[in-house]
């Protein structure tokens, strides 16, 4: 068995728009190790979002094999895939996707509620997460009473509450100003520092450059798979945006 966390082999994804076929992904082979920090970059339409959806099991490839932690997840049923999502994968979205009628604490608890975890355990983990993300005083606030940065922190807390192996972040700073974006990225990178595999999709070169490994997508194929040396990654803020 291979030690890689994520293995994609010959992944194909074709969308049909009327008569024409659009190849969002063509024979993609990528491996990502546990604890890696990877930025997926490329212009819009390059297939990076499709890749993220496939990695997050929200979409199925038309061909190829996706192994997550050594297990072929492409052949799982929809219900089994939902289990894998619940236990292994955390999502962070550009537009936060918080449930507007639920408070910050309830939003954070949502994955645990869906997984059927006991209320006592839920309360304990939510309290700790609120603490970790500096949201203690915002627990009962609804999303519309929170700032953008706070919302994204709630979203990150929600993504990590089930202690997933992988965090998938889709333009996590896209709706934030520079300072809060920086803060959010630092939070995500801290998580990565603790061993969580972090995959960030962005078209922002500066953001992508922070990652030690960058995948550059173009027309559904991998153009570059660049790994940076350790000392280069030390000063991410020096790069232009």
């Amino acid at each position, binding site marked *: 068995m291979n030690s890689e966390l994520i293995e994609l082999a010959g992944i194909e994804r074709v969308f049909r728009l009327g008569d024409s076929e659009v190849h969002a992904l063509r024979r993609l082979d990528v491996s990502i190790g546990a604890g890696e920090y990877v930025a997926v970059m490329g212009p819009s339409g390059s297939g990076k979002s499709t890749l993220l959806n496939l990695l997050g099991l*929200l979409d199925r490839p038309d061909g190829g094999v996706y192994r997550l932690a050594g297990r072929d997840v492409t052949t799982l049923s*929809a*219900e089994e895939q*939902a289990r894998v999502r619940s236990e292994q994968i955390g*999502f962070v979205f550009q537009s936060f996707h918080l*449930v*507007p*009628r639920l408070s910050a604490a309830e939003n954070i608890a949502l994955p645990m509620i*869906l997984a059927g975890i006991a209320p006592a355990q839920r309360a304990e983990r939510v309290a700790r997460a609120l603490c970790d993300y500096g949201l203690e005083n915002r627990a009962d606030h609804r999303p519309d009473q929170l700032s953008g940065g706070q919302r994204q922190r709630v979203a990150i807390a929600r993504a990590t509450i089930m202690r997933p192996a992988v965090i998938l972040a889709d333009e996590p700073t896209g709706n934030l100003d520079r300072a809060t974006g920086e803060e959010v990225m630092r939070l995500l990178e801290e998580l990565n520092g603790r061993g969580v595999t972090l995959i960030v999709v962005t078209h922002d070169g500066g953001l992508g450059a922070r990652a030690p490994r960058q995948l550059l997508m173009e027309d559904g194929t991998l153009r570059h798979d660049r790994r940076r040396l350790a000392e280069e990654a030390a000063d991410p803020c020096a790069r232009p945006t």
Partner: protein
Amino acid sequence: MRTTDLIRFARGAATGNPLRTTLLVLAMAIGVAAVVVLTALGDGARRYVLNEFSSIGSNLVIVLPGRSQTGGFNPGNAVTSTPRDLTIDDAQALLRASAVYRAAPLAVGTSEISAGGKLREVTVAGTTAEFIEVRRLALAQGRFLPSGDWRRGASEAVIGAKIRDEMFGRGPALGQVVRVGDRRFRVVGILAASGQGLGMNTDELVIVPVALAQAMFNSNTLFRILVEATSREAIEPAKAQVTEILRLRHEGELDVTIITQDAVLATFDRLLGTMTLAVAGIAAISLAVAGILVMNVMLVSVAQRTAEIGLLKALGATGVTIGKAFLTEAAMLSVAGAVLGFALGHAGAAIIRQLYPAYPAFPPGWAVLAGLGTALLTGILFGVLPARQAARLDPVQALAKR
């Protein structure tokens, strides 16, 4: 997802849009309330008629002179010509039957009553002491006719409440002498006012001993023999025994008609029961409409909450969980509507009873259960389609929408 969480989540989703929820609950409530009120009206009508009929007496078998060829109960029975008289002896003979508890002969005619210079036309009923028991009449004052030989009788009369008022006004009537036809009677009793009912109006009746009435009208025949069976179960045996006795007494020819109160009651019961059912069916249509409304609103809700559904899927919710959440919401709205409608319906029925005290507008238990059941069933049934649609939603597209 735990059941309590599921319920809390559905409740949150329902209260998150108060206007939609209120309208839905109201629609369901109106449907259920309509069923409750309409069946209360229908069943109230049935009870009202049954009460009126029962007030004639209970376990009654009624003998009419003459044979109705067509059978059954129709007004023609009352005016058939008789080849052979139905006599007081016939009536007395019926008492020998084991299933007969009591019997009262009844001779009816019209005459004039006069007292203190006042004169009016009245219906005179000639009968015996048993009549008051058989017909379940109540006395306001005095006593009824004394029991004794049916072929004799003291010149005593019992008068209806209205006759009393008209003949004697505020003055005392008991013990007064009235003239009926060419005979003089002493008033010994006054019937309690019973109001207009089915059958005879006892308020305008003068009751005298049957022998005197026959003499007054110069006739030997009876208008009716009222027979009371020993019990409800004994009605059919009583009918058979009465038939047999009268056939023997009339030289093997059955020239009387015998009807049971039960048969008449059963006919009315069936008729009005069917009417209640029909009314309930009409009300059920409004429930079905409410169910379709639930479906519509839930479908709109699914469309409005695509992003949320996509998110829940991304967070690890299975299609089953999402389907359950929507179904729970639909069921909760239906239950709330049904309970509210139940309360509204009962309040409506109570108001009707308040306005028309004589009308027993109580919703029958089966209708209430059926109404509530239909509400829940339609709500849940019509909730399935939106729930399935929500469960099948593609998370990628759901999340991309915004």
